[in-house]
């Protein structure tokens, strides 16, 4: 199954990836990163299709998408 990797310490918390994931697999974490921002994280609650929409919209370019 494809998966994504978010570089959490670099996340600024705009959450554009959260609204652009067609499967709703990206969630907002409860704890803060080094910037004091509640970073987005990849929840493995469903099936990622590897469409890379999250990576396309991420303004910080911190999302990497992997195929199986």
């Amino acid at each position, binding site marked *: 199954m494809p998966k994504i990797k978010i570089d959490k310490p670099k996340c600024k918390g705009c959450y554009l990836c959260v609204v652009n994931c067609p499967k709703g697999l990206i969630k907002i974490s409860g704890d803060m990163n080094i910037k004091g921002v509640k970073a987005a994280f990849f929840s493995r609650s469903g099936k990622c299709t590897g469409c890379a929409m999250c990576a396309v919209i991420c303004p910080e370019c911190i999302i990497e998408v*992997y195929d199986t």
Partner: protein
Amino acid sequence: MRRLIFSRPKSLRDVEMHYCAGCGHGIVHRLLCEAIDELGIRERTIGVAPVGCAVLAYDYWDFDVTEAAHGRTPAVATGIKRVRPENIVFSYQGDGDLAAIGTAEIIHTANRGENITVIFVNNGVYGMTGGQMAPTTLAGQKTDTTIAGRNLKRDGYPIKILEMLAVLPGVRYAERVSVHSAQETLRAKRAIKKAFKTQVDNIGFSIVEILSMCPIYWGMTAIQAAERIETEVATFYPIGVIKSY
């Protein structure tokens, strides 16, 4: 073994950008780098960074970049392109830079039909100086200098620069795109790539306007700002090809 299907383009340096959360500049920087990498022109590209929020763009791009005075990027790009016609020269500008102080430069560069590419990021406010009204600010939009909303009688009308430039015969390719959603971002990338292709093929002046979010000075979250582009900004500045060859 896992195969990487999306990662940072080679032309984009692995450094943290200074932009606010949800700013469209980061997306546009990456699209530009992807287009340059895909066309294989990285070794011969020269960018001209503007004055504005993207003033430090040269820290993020891994190709030759120079800096110009406020609004004069098309003039500097013209000079570079005329001296070094084998290089790919682009000017990166915001709306305060291109539509206000640099209006003369952009109009005459377009009119001369210089073979350069202009990337015009339109967010409707002056971001770097603290959120003042720009010529592209929409009617009724609240900014630091129009606290009751832009008054058309007092402040004039928002300028549609692309429609204005499209009437000039020197302009060969003009398209307006947006980066408010992933689908529109993919469309924006195709437009930027075509603009660079126009220059590589020596066809002439190309310009891409990108509607971008400024959540901080619009006074909203990044998600609300993206929605505002779809519901408000894109209705006044219609997305699509304005002129093509």
